[in-house]
């Protein structure tokens, strides 16, 4: 643990159980350490110097037992003073902190007013950006194409995007190829299929022939999940139904006007359709793939390489906001912070139903699904590979694809690992994992076989 005091003979810098003897009980000892750690976590400077001190002391005493023996023998104060004589710990800490000074403090980050953007939005009213010394302006944007263009234009330093978008931009699908990165996923789950209230008896997707569906964008998880769901039911998404790209704010109005039969959309659109009596929630997207990524925090490769400190401060703010949002008990407070006109501009109860997962389904039932939306910043490279298999499956991407290389280049899993550790989260050991979509396992090692295994495809 880098946050433990290395000058405390009682702490272990390595791993293992507790053995102190200075406390009456093991629990009490643990409590004392925790209180100290909490103080460290509260104070940014203290935390920084702890990290530096730990690193130095660990380097001096690779053996934990030697360090503890040394500290016990000479006393903590003497040890700290002795080491400080040879190694100016204060100066090292300062240098480390100075290195972290952002190159640019005033930033603009674009977002689309949907709950997927929760970490990006809440970091503004709840002070996660200012904690990193950044003055971030979060700018509401009209649509995905505009957010892409404004980010490419450098009007925005970074932006909220759909997780397939950085891949599409890098691959040059639907725009010129520009190296793009996606250092953090914002939310997992949090989407739903909503149908018009007049279809409340057609719950089997096999009955949906001739339906008109809306998705937010061609390069979106929504499009791929809806296509996957329909294809599993035996419907060809290009022939048996119509799928159009409609900006989320227009979806409810279109559903009410009977222009579309349903949509797979981000929240709060689904809950808003229920709230206004226009539709009902057929299934949540977690029932298709539990833990799927949706939206992402994205920045150009240029921004990442030219302003590394700004980038890492910004990413840190996002990851800490994501960590805060991942806790159920904070969700109500977040809903209140992001519902006003400056951010989502939605009735607070709608946002609250989405974030807490206790919601009205539009058919008269109150459903409790605490992981309706969840927040986990880790950009699994296997997510990127799955997205690319679907791009290829539906003909958006042609020819041979170096799945792994592109996934690694765009989804910056290693950066997230580092910053998640600093934010006190536990990042996973690996950057790829297997997962199941509608019961079918996806192996990131075999993308081509995966595509070939589908009956309905455009390859």
């Amino acid at each position, binding site marked *: 643990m880098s946050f433990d005091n290395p000058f405390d003979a009682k702490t272990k810098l390595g791993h293992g159980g507790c053995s102190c003897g200075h406390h009456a009980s093991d629990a009490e000892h643990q409590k004392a350490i925790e209180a100290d750690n909490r103080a460290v976590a509260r104070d940014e400077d203290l935390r920084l110097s702890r990290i530096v001190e730990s690193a130095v002391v660990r380097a001096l005493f690779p053996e934990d037992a030697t360090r503890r023996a040394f500290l016990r023998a000479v006393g903590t104060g003497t040890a700290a003073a002795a080491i400080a004589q040879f190694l100016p710990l204060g100066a090292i800490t300062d240098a480390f902190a100075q290195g972290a000074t952002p190159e640019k403090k005033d930033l603009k980050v674009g977002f689309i007013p949907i709950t997927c953007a929760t970490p990006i939005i809440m970091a503004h009213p709840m002070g996660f950006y200012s904690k990193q010394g950044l003055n971030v302006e979060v700018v509401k944007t009209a649509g995905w194409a505009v957010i892409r263009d404004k980010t490419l234009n450098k009007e925005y330093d970074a932006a909220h995007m759909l997780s397939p978008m950085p891949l599409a931009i890098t691959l040059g699908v639907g725009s010129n190829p520009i190296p793009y990165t996606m250092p953090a996923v914002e939310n997992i789950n949090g989407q739903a299929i909503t149908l018009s209230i007049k279809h409340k008896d057609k719950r089997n997707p096999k009955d949906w022939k001739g339906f008109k569906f809306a998705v937010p964008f061609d390069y979106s998880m929504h499009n791929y999940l809806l296509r996957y769901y329909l294809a599993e039911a035996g419907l060809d998404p290009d022939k048996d139904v119509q799928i159009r790209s409609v900006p989320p704010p227009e979806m409810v109005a279109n559903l009410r006007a009977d222009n579309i039969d349903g949509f797979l959309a981000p929240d709060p659109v689904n809950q808003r359709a229920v709230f206004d009596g226009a539709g009902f929630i057929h299934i949540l997207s977690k029932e298709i793939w539990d833990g799927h990524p949706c939206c992402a925090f994205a920045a150009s490769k240029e921004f990442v390489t030219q302003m590394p400190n700004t980038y890492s401060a910004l990413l840190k703010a996002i990851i800490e906001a994501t960590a805060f949002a991942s806790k159920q008990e904070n969700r109500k407070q977040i809903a209140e912070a992001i519902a006003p*006109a400056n951010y989502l501009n939605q009735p607070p109860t709608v946002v609250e139903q989405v974030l807490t997962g206790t919601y009205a389904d539009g058919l008269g039932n109150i459903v409790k699904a605490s992981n309706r939306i969840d927040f986990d910043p880790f950009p699994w490279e296997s997510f990127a590979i799955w997205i690319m298999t679907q791009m290829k499956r539906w003909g958006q991407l042609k020819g041979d694809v170096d799945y792994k290389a592109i996934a690694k280049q765009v989804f910056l899993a290693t950066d997230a690992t580092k910053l998640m550790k600093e934010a006190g989260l536990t990042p996973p050991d690996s950057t790829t994992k297997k997962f199941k979509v509608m019961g079918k396992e996806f192996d990131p090692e075999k993308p081509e076989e995966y595509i070939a295994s589908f009956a309905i495809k455009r390859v």
Partner: protein
Amino acid sequence: MAQPSASSLNIKATIVSVLILATFLFAWHLGTAGVATTQKLDPEYAKLMGATATQGKSAMPGPIEVGAKIWEHLKDPFYDRGTNDKGLGIQLAYSIGRVALGYLLAVAVAIPLGFLIGMSPLMSRALDPFIQVMKPISPLAWMPLALYTIKDSGMSAIFVIFICSLWPMLINTAFGVASVRKEWLNVAKTLELGPARTALSVILPAAAPTIFTGMRISIGIAWLVIVAAEMLVGGTGIGYFVWNEWNNLSITNVITAILAIGLVGMALDQLMARLQKSVSYAD
């Protein structure tokens, strides 16, 4: 029979206007006051739902709600609660600013170019095919191209205003200049005026009414287009305000904005009409 005096006609017209407005508001009120039947809902469930679903309230607001909303905006038109939430007055000011800038740029290009086309039959023929092709293009069709090349959404909106206000002014200027009476030009020639002086002291005053007609048409188009352009690029302006409130399905605010757009458009048109009147002359 005596002709009714102008003032009595005005009074009558006002009465008819008020009657039309009252009938419209009353019909609107009746149309939206209706409450549809709703089935009984579990109170826990009802708490999670909106008024449309629980009380069968019409999704369309009535005139009273809109009136209250307008009053709310009038009381505090210049509030600033962050980047994405500014008062109606500030939004209108942004839009007017963009229109003014794009429009003035168009004036600076259209009038000299119009003079050139009007005075030179050669240029008139040479430029004609370009003008004919460019004129019917919807200004919003330029938006993606502008965003891509100018790389600035604010400037792109101004460019769109520029391009849409250019054509009526250009064509009217060229037409006005070309149709200056031959006799007047001949008089200028007899007095041995140079081309610059002829343009400024003979052609300009003679063509001014036609030029101003073009300018009046242009400002109207510019104001129509800015709302759509701002809905596309977002950020600030009355178009963004409409989009943001649509996002929240707040028809009350959308109607308020529509009224504000109408009033500002009328004010701009009246302003141009005044200017036009000041330069018109009787033959």
